[in-house]
């Protein structure tokens, strides 16, 4: 009997492991190296200062091509800004709307507005970018295998043409105008290297290196992908503690009930 339960448990474990294995679908590209993120682990939270700097990088660099359409300006309050600070950040931003006569106008952005898109629609975005529309970044960290590690690796993984080995150039058929990225599937990426040292001047005075910008904007995009993450983890700790207590009591009750039957 006991042996059977053990073998059953092993079979169950195998089933669960099989289920988990799906998540780890194998890829052939270079795996992004793992970095430590402030938000990882069961108690991890977002680094507010990094996320605010990351917003600055997004606003000054990425937003020229990439939309962030699922976020509203009011959401920026969640990364530790006050309402007035956010209003200050968006005071020069206008968003498209219709006036009372149905004519398209640009009006000043409000807190309740979604982030302004750089292109009116996907076709226009593709037309302005050599036929490939830059992806929306709202859930980009969840939408890529490797998550934050991949985004950071991609942003820092460009190799200039003159640093490539002849073998790499031959194998991938790279020409001088191509952008070679170690971590992009297929390596030839449409996006030119977006970040470089001193590309932005941080308002908080942090030294603006390529690494710093990539790490900050990744923190920001990780938050953008799941702004409720801290709430989720907090709730989870409470739920599991509660269930453990209930399990203990249930076990005691079950033993009491069965006491005279064993």
């Amino acid at each position, binding site marked *: *009997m006991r042996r059977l339960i053990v073998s059953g448990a092993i079979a169950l474990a195998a089933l669960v492991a099989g*289920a*988990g294995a799906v*998540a780890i*679908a194998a890829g052939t590209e270079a795996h992004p190296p793992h970095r430590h993120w402030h938000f990882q682990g069961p108690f991890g939270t977002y680094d507010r200062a990094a996320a605010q700097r990351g917003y600055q990088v997004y606003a000054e660099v990425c937003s020229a091509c990439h939309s962030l359409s699922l976020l509203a300006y009011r959401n920026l309050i969640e990364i530790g800004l006050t309402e007035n600070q956010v209003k200050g950040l968006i005071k020069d931003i206008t968003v498209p709307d219709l006036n009372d006569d149905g004519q398209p106008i640009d009006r000043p952005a409000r807190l309740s507005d979604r982030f302004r898109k750089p292109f009116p629609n996907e076709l226009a975005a593709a037309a302005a970018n050599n036929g490939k529309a830059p992806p929306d970044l709202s859930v980009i960290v*969840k939408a890529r295998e490797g998550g934050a590690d991949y985004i950071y690796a991609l942003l820092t993984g460009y190799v200039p043409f003159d640093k490539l080995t002849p073998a790499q150039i031959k194998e991938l058929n790279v020409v001088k105008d191509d952008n070679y990225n170690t971590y992009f599937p297929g390596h030839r990426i449409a996006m030119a290297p977006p970040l470089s040292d001193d590309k932005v001047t941080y308002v908080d005075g942090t030294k603006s290196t390529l690494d710093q910008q990539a790490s900050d904007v990744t923190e920001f995009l990780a938050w953008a992908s799941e702004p409720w993450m801290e709430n989720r*983890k907090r709730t*989870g700790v409470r739920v599991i503690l509660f269930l453990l207590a209930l399990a203990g009591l249930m076990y005691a009750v*079950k033993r009491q009930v*069965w006491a005279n039957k064993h």
Partner: protein
Amino acid sequence: MASSHGTPPVFNNKVIAWIDYRLPIFSYIEKEYHTFPTPRNFNYFWNFGAIATVMLVLMIATGVVLATNYTPNVLMAFDSVERIDRDVPSGWLMRDLHMNGASFFFIAVYVHIFRGMYYGSYKQPRELLWILGVVIFLLMMATAFMGYVLPWGQMSFWGATVITSLFSAIPVVGDSIVTWLWGGFSIGNPTLNRFYALHYLLPFIIVAVVALHVVALHVHGSNNPTGIDPKGPQDTVPFHPYYTMKDGFGVVIFLIVYSAVVFFAPDMLGDAANYIPADPLVTPTHIVPEWYFLPFYAILRAVPDKLGGVIAMFGAIAVLFVLPWLDTSRVRSSTFRPIYKWFMLLLVVDVVVLGFCGANPPAGFWIPLSQVATLYYFVHFLILLPVLGKIERPLPLPPSIADSVLKKKAG
């Protein structure tokens, strides 16, 4: 058994007595869930029926509230799911519970099916009980498949395209059937709309079939680890409090594992590509269904012929319907079947192997491996099961359930 126990209960509460005289719901509950004589020797595998029921209720409850905020339109579906996560109060909780709930519902049901197969719970006189269970399993697969389409990500779209295209393998009418399923010439808004409607409907049909499953169960009562029938009161205990409390404990333990995934790794079982909005012009490099379909997906791909693959995949489920008649053994429980027991465990390993085959691209050694695993799956059901029942010499059965419990205690 069930028909021969106890006298009708007497209710002291006047209101309850009044109602029960006219509509005997309280007598029913008393008879079927309180005094119901249940074999006293269940192990923890017998918890999974109750666990699956809890998951079904949880899926319906979270599903109904999610439906109040979801928009079944190709232009808005993806964003409406994100809005549930981001803006709707407790919306993220409902969605994480629901999308992981599907996985844990399947885990519970797979263990439940394994238990039924290992202990021969499908054998006479429980054949219809088993068949109703297979019907529930089929309905669950249809529901889960259509539910996965609703977020309208890349995997939703392409998974739906691949699976519905299976029907095009049917000779002559295949293409017309696919067009009919789609309501158009590709997966589109009409498809999303009908999948949503059916995804909402099917769970209630599952509830109805579960009710029949339980009614059928209570005609002859549960099987048990020895596979022998209870011979008298010394072999049974009342369902309540003995199994209500034991099931309750099992349910809480299961919920702990479930909560760990819901709250600390909600996307572990999902696919990153489903966070990319559906794009009919770009196919993901690697289309995989949800993990609970992987063994069947592997069987589909193992056969190097379109129609053959589809037949093999549906055959893998169809064979379960006739399982009670394929098994020729007179002994129910594998505990007393020294040879079959190991083949049964090998089947579990085989299905897990098929799962890995389904998760990986059909290339290299995965192809022959999935073919061997598919072959074993069918050999197990169609050859081993009928033949072993005839030639295997079972171990001696204990004289009664009580006897086996006492013996275990002594040893």
